[in-house]
């Protein structure tokens, strides 16, 4: 049995790659999948914080690559889930300290034990990006709907098609239906018009999501969070299920009810 390696990337920083990775991991485990999260952002590691696993880290991916420990030793188990592990990045090293080949080798081992391996890519399109993309079977592009994020996402898609021959999927993050309805912001259709790739899901803007990130509890583990529905839907689509897109534009009681039940 081999799993799928999915790299989450964006080009621009701060659009929610790490949050998306953490929540997607949590949502996938809740759907009964075995998941390993890999932080490829060496030197600026964040995924451990967002997943609330910082204090458990002993070894990191560079230790594995350089043979100072086994892969099993470096994996950090998330106690809230059945099968969710984190392979942390080194904070004291540099992105050039791991090669794309080493990363691919690590991921080849990981897919033997997990259904999904999610790689949190660093921002930018330099060495760290190549390292994160090299092992990927699939790529998720996270973007918000503002100009600079879209432009960078467009460039990343171009690079993926040119150098890596991959067709990515799109996650629109921090989507604000109120601004779209008032005509001041790009809607989902406009974003898809520009980027022209498959939409994997839309995550509405939610300030409590920021708080849960800060606390180290992925929203997908928090039953009170509505936004967890969005991640659950993305996870289902990643697993190949056909989930209709939630209609964020519909107002009124029925729209509210529909959003609560994630339809």
């Amino acid at each position, binding site marked *: 049995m081999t799993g799928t390696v999915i790299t989450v990337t964006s080009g621009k920083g701060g659009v929610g790659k790490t949050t998306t990775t953490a929540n997607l991991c949590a949502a996938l485990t809740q759907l009964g999948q075995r998941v390993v999260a890999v932080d490829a952002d060496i030197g600026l590691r964040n995924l451990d914080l967002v997943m609330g696993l910082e204090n458990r880290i002993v070894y990191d991916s560079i230790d594995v690559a350089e043979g100072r420990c086994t892969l099993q030793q470096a994996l950090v188990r998330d106690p809230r889930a059945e099968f969710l592990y984190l392979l942390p990045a080194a904070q004291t090293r540099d992105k050039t300290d791991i090669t794309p080949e080493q990363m691919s080798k690590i991921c080849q081992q990981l897919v033997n034990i997990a259904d999904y391996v999610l790689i949190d890519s660093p921002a930018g399109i330099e060495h760290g990006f190549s390292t994160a993309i090299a092992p990927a*079977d699939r790529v998720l592009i996270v973007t918000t709907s503002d100009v600079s994020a879209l432009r960078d996402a467009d460039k990343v898609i171009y690079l993926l098609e040119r150098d890596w*021959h991959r067709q990515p999927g799109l996650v629109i993050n921090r989507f604000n239906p109120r601004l779209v309805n008032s005509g001041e912001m790009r809607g989902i259709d406009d974003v898809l018009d*520009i980027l022209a790739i498959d939409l994997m899901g839309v995550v509405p803007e939610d300030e409590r999501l920021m708080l849960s990130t800060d606390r180290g509890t992925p929203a997908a583990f928090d039953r009170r969070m509505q936004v967890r529905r969005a991640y659950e839907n993305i996870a289902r689509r990643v697993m190949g299920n056909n989930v209709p897109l939630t209609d964020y534009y519909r107002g009124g009681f029925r729209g509210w009810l529909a959003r609560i039940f994630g339809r």
Partner: protein
Amino acid sequence: MSESPLSQETVHAAPTNGLPAFHTRIADLLDDVTAPAMLAADAATATAAGVAANAASGAPAPDAPPSSSPSTAVSVANLFPPLPARPLDAESPPPAVDAGAPLPGERLVGAPRRPATPLSAANLPPFLAPSSPPPPSDAGESSPPAASPRGEAPPTDAVGESSDALAAANQLVNIKGRSDGIVVEVGRGSWSEILGVLTKRLEQSAGFFRNGSVALDVGARPLVEDELRQFAAVLTQFEMKLGVVRTSSERTFQAALAIGMTTTLESPEGAPVAAATPAATNAGAASYFVYRGYLRSGHRLRRTENILVIGDINPGAEVISEGDILVWGRLRGVVHAGASGNRRAIVAALDLEPTQMRIADVTTIGPDPKPGQPGRFFWKRSQHKRPEIARLVQNEIVLEEWDAARPGGLVSLRRGAG
């Protein structure tokens, strides 16, 4: 997403089925080999036929220069119509059995990028023996078992080295004899490293490839003009010449064109996107370069021909042509038509909203966003959405909707050209 490598395999696996025929008829074919001008293989036809005949009869040909074999192989491939399951219907050239020499560009399109030939080495004529690496297993060169009847070992056998070092070198430079000539594939690694390995291997081959024409397959690697020149220089040093550059990188394609090489641009799956010979033989302005797909931010398309884009040009992309630029889609990037000073060039698009548009030496910029509104070019779908044509009228770029431009437009096109 994940299917692309898969589909690549199927694409290349497909053309196998012509191979039995290939064998049975190879002897007849070799007798009437005609001068294969197609792949820039200009080796003497007579020697080619001679060697091939020897080779087909199984006898080693120690006296004749073996390097003319690629040209023979090319013509063999030519005599066969495109094999049935090839997925590129639109672009594939007519079978061209006896229709004279087709255009160089077309010929290149017709050549399958990686003819998967799972032949046993015993079946092969000796001159093809070092070819046919079944799937491209870079790790170890499968040296043809006991199939080196000739005095000089095929270079792939490169004796006297530890297999590790050999494998590493093979990952950098892979020299293959294929049905369409000698192909040099380069892997990842610095260019100087690759040239070093190439030099070494050519030295080992001791003139085996002399006078051969080489197809350089660089995959997606972007190369600049200097790197290609260096490569050609190494080949010249060993009395070989660079025939064609195959690439799936637009940058390399442009570089090869710029220094006057024959080149093919292929999609990652190996389907040809474009083939071009240097502008000298290709009457540039009259022909069209067709690009299908999205031109995304950071993509630069520069050609001497007219350009037709079927798809969108996104903001941040640049399209430069010495002729017209036509876009069946949205034009929102930077375009420059008539780049060499052709003031009659036009720009036309279904949705013409460029960030910046230049025709010959005249430049316009898109209007600034209205205050309080997000930027125009990444804004919503445009409101009017009518096809428009832009051209120069008295040193100004004028935009006209297509139906307004049409009746008087053709006249004014002529007038505007003055």
